[in-house]
């Protein structure tokens, strides 16, 4: 177990430090660390504490959330194509967040924004699970996902197009592709409570998901309450995806790629895949966020562009494999 988790944890730590040291302002590494940990109110301290630290923390947190949610959904549906971005959960969360902002609800009280995104994500998960059924056949799952993604995306665009604010329409790209640029500690505090709650709910699913690999009947015979498992999965996924999307937009493919890459390393055992996938997701999003700052730093490249460039070919590969198995 530690053979997989320890290297992953080291990788996350290294990428986290790199994320703190990379940015448009060229600061010497030692000055940066002094600015981060030492007192003082100078510009370096401000850059480190108010710009780079929240960015790195959010990348690690949201990446872990997406990896964890992907692994849990794939375990429950026993389908490697289940992923919060692909099946429309992230898109529904973005719709919730956009509606909260456009109606002014997000200004009404602090947690309104993540709560609205959580409600959107909850709607997305419920719809997918209702449409795909408990066994989650690959074709139905993907069709349901496409429909929900398209509907959530269209409603998001409609809400932004109807806004009287001249900047709102430009934000469609942010909500579809995600970005961590210029986020602050405020965003971290908004997302943190729901993320922690979601992690807690999802982390407890390991034993149930292990049993489920033997089939539903066997799992029930082993004393697994499938209705409860399903409820925890829905709530946990909605919490982590909703909170992450509310502050960083819909970031796709992390929950698809990471569990797929790590599954062979943990002997395809869901309970071991959950923590590994969380660490892997954090590493992937930290790396993607480093890449958007190193490639075309002045263009504000969106995170989802990079994760999709990595994820979409893998997605095609998985579909190809699924087709062969079905044939």
């Amino acid at each position, binding site marked *: 177990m530690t053979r997989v988790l320890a290297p992953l944890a080291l990788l996350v730590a290294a990428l986290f430090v790199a994320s703190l040291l990379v940015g448009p*302002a060229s600061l010497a590494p030692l000055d940066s660390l002094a600015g981060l940990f030492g007192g003082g109110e100078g510009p370096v301290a*401000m850059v480190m504490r108010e710009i780079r630290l929240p960015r790195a923390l959010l990348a690690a947190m949201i990446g872990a959330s997406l990896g964890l949610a992907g692994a849990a959904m794939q375990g429950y549906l026993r389908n490697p194509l289940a992923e919060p971005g692909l099946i429309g959960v992230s898109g529904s969360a973005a719709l919730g967040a956009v509606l909260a902002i456009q109606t002014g609800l997000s200004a009404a009280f602090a947690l309104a924004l993540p709560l609205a995104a959580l409600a959107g994500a909850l709607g997305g998960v419920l719809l997918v699970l209702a449409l795909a059924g408990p066994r989650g056949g690959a074709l139905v799952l993907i069709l349901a996902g496409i429909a929900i993604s398209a509907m959530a995306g269209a409603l998001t665009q409609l809400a932004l197009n109807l806004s009287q604010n001249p900047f709102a329409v430009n934000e469609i790209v942010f909500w579809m592709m995600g970005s961590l640029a210029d986020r602050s500690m405020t965003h971290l505090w908004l997302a943190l409570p729901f993320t922690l709650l979601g992690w807690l709910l999802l982390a407890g699913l390991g034993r149930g998901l292990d049993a489920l690999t033997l089939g539903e009947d066997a799992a029930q015979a082993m004393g697994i309450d499938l209705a409860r498992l399903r409820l925890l999965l829905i709530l946990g996924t909605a919490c982590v995806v909703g909170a992450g999307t509310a502050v960083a937009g819909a970031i796709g493919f992390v929950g698809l790629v990471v569990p797929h890459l790590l599954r062979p390393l943990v002997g395809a055992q869901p309970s071991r895949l959950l923590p590994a996938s969380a660490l892997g997701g954090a590493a992937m999003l930290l790396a993607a966020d480093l890449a958007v700052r190193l490639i075309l730093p002045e263009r504000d490249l969106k995170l989802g562009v990079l994760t999709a460039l990595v994820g979409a070919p893998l997605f095609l590969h998985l579909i190809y494999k699924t087709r062969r198995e079905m044939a």
Partner: protein
Amino acid sequence: MRLSRVISLLAALLFGGAVAQAGTGWPGDAPRKVVSLNLCTDQLAMLLAEPGQLAAVTPLAANPRSSAMADHAADLPVTHGRAEEVYLLAPDLVVAGQFTDRATVDMLRRLGLRVEEFAPVYDLSDIPARLARMGALLGQEARAQAMIDAFTADLATLRADTPGPRAALYYANGYTSGDASLAGQILVAAGFRNIASEMGYGAIGALPLELLAMAAPDVVITGRPYPGASRSEAVMDHPVVSALKRGRVAGTVTDRDWVCGTPHVLRAVSEMARLRRKVEAGQ
């Protein structure tokens, strides 16, 4: 120069010209029905046209957030820039901006209408040329010349000669303007040094928040949020921007006086000059 004096000068600009020209305007070959398709040509035309000569303007011209002449535009018909409605008005002349929808401009030309395009103003010294061109198009050369003379004189009075405090323009989505833009020129005329120009920004570009923090400007001048929230504008309330403003004088860009190259930019210059004096008093 005091703001009240600028306002009275502008009032003289707006109304004095009309009085001086009364009876002589409206030469025989001037277009009698002019339609404008761009906020800035709207305002140039409103400044110079005879009553009745300007047949329609854009809806933005009547919006007090974006237009310095919203009151004036309130009495004029509007079009939404669609070729069909413009053609049905049968104008003798259409004035448009260089960035007006290409398809619309080409369509109007195919339909045989005369369309004159105006490039955006990037420098205060472009404003007399724009006034002169609009004056010539409308057959109001004398009125345009009077306005140019007044503008040049007022600008000379307002313009600060010594470079003063360092300022940063910071708009929605983290954009800023350097000296090669009208906003940058307004700052320079008011006696600020623009940090964007120190960093090599020419016209408009995205200024990373980190670089803004490191530049530590004496004053941050942000845009004024539009109604209906947006996350593009939320960056102007980022803790870093708030920290840069804390305990200091802060400025706001009043879009209507900043976006178009008309004599109304003098209001922006005098507002910024006032801000500069406040910053200098606090230093």
